[in-house]
């Protein structure tokens, strides 16, 4: 064995060296992962929660905020990513809302957005988490002026060009349609869930 090991191109030597290197490396990696994984998870959760809370009225209890529980979405709409039920547990008046994460495709790819909906299936807030729309055109979709058009509405939205009530962003009808489609999908998802129970 030792004899074979001395020859740099012998089979055992090759195998053992590569094994040793990968093993040590993965050990190190495993350890680092062990340390960082919780931090990473927490961060992601916080980010999502922040985005979701953004589309809801301020939580009554500012300290704990809402608690979110993910509901199982059974519909077939591919735009809908996740549906959450948001509950303001500690408040005296119990409030519960839906937050739907949708990702319609816009001009430059998917638009990730969150739509807040109350029990009457009225939109209470729309926020864009991330998008890659053209800055100056499509990116104006994140402006409150545009998004607030949806707040308070329900049913089915459409862009004015298609005979609806939403004024499209100038020069960015594609983006406007996408956002509208996202809101519509969110509303539909909630109504399906509501029907189910």
């Amino acid at each position: 064995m030792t004899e074979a090991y001395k020859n740099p191109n012998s089979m055992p030597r090759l195998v053992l060296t590569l094994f040793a290197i990968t093993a040590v490396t993965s050990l190190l990696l495993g350890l680092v992962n062990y340390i960082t994984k919780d931090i990473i998870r927490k961060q992601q959760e916080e980010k999502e929660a922040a985005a979701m809370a953004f589309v809801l009225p301020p939580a009554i209890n500012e300290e704990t905020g809402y608690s979110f529980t993910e509901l199982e979405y059974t519909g077939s709409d591919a735009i809908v990513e996740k549906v959450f039920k948001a509950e303001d547990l500690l408040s005296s008046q119990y409030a519960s809302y839906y937050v739907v994460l949708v990702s319609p495709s816009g001009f430059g790819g998917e638009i990730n957005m969150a739509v807040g909906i109350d029990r009457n299936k009225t939109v209470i807030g729309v926020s864009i988490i991330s998008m890659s729309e053209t800055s100056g055109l499509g990116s104006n979709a994140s402006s409150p002026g545009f998004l607030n058009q949806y707040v308070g509405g329900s049913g089915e939205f459409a862009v004015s060009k298609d005979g609806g009530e939403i004024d499209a962003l100038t020069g960015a009808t594609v983006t406007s349609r996408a956002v509208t489609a996202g809101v519509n999908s969110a509303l539909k998802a909630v109504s399906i869930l509501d029907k189910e129970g």
Partner: protein
Amino acid sequence: MTNVIYAVAVLGLLGAFFGLVLAFAARKFAVEVDERQLQVEETLPGANCGGCGYAGCAAYAAAIVNEGAPINLCVAGGSQVIADISHIMGIESAETERFVAHVRCSGCTGIAREKFEYDGIPDCVAAMRLGGGQGFKECSASCLGLGTCVRACQFDAIHIIDGVAVVDHEKCVGCMACAEVCPKDVIEKIPYSANITVPCNSLDKGPVVRKYCDVGCIACKICERVCEYDAIHVTDNLAHIDYDKCVSCGKCVEKCPRNLILDIRTDRKAGEPSTANS
């Protein structure tokens, strides 16, 4: 913590597996390769950047060893790599004498008469296609100064100055690519150490030369007479220097009635036109 153990186990085994595969392949698929090719490959940076124009370092190494590709193509490696490769390939320029190209013509614009106005492509070979196949200068041996050689030189060592080609002896590596393309055969190879040159290529007799050129060799043999070292001889109406004998004393330079013979040290700095002649 189990995750860490999994990690070590899985990846370690994966590593071992591939080590095994590769070891197996290395043994089963072994192909004889020129030892030098491996060495050259070692020497190359291994960046596989493709800057050499070959598909990666190994391909370039193979090309050097098998196809005699130039050894100076690796951009990433720099001069050290070139030196190392030349060491491996045994093409160390074994302290042989260095040669450079030299244009045997001083027929600058205004000094050599022209037969006609040439109107065409600035290329010596093209010019030779017109008006009888000798170009537009009266002297049939002269440099045409249209720079075909300049384009052939990879080292920016030859330039047209006042209508004749002039070699920059510092930059020239003596590859003679210029001479190969020159349709006039006026470029010769001289030792880098040579100081005295006769920049004329005309084999015509004196009176004929006088008619068309202000500096051309008229075969008067004065240089032959003044040379104390028997280093310059007129054959076929043209003076030739024997560089084995020439000691660069400069006597011939002084005495040449045509002011033709050139002392490179004083008369012409590399890349500058001849001052002695004008």
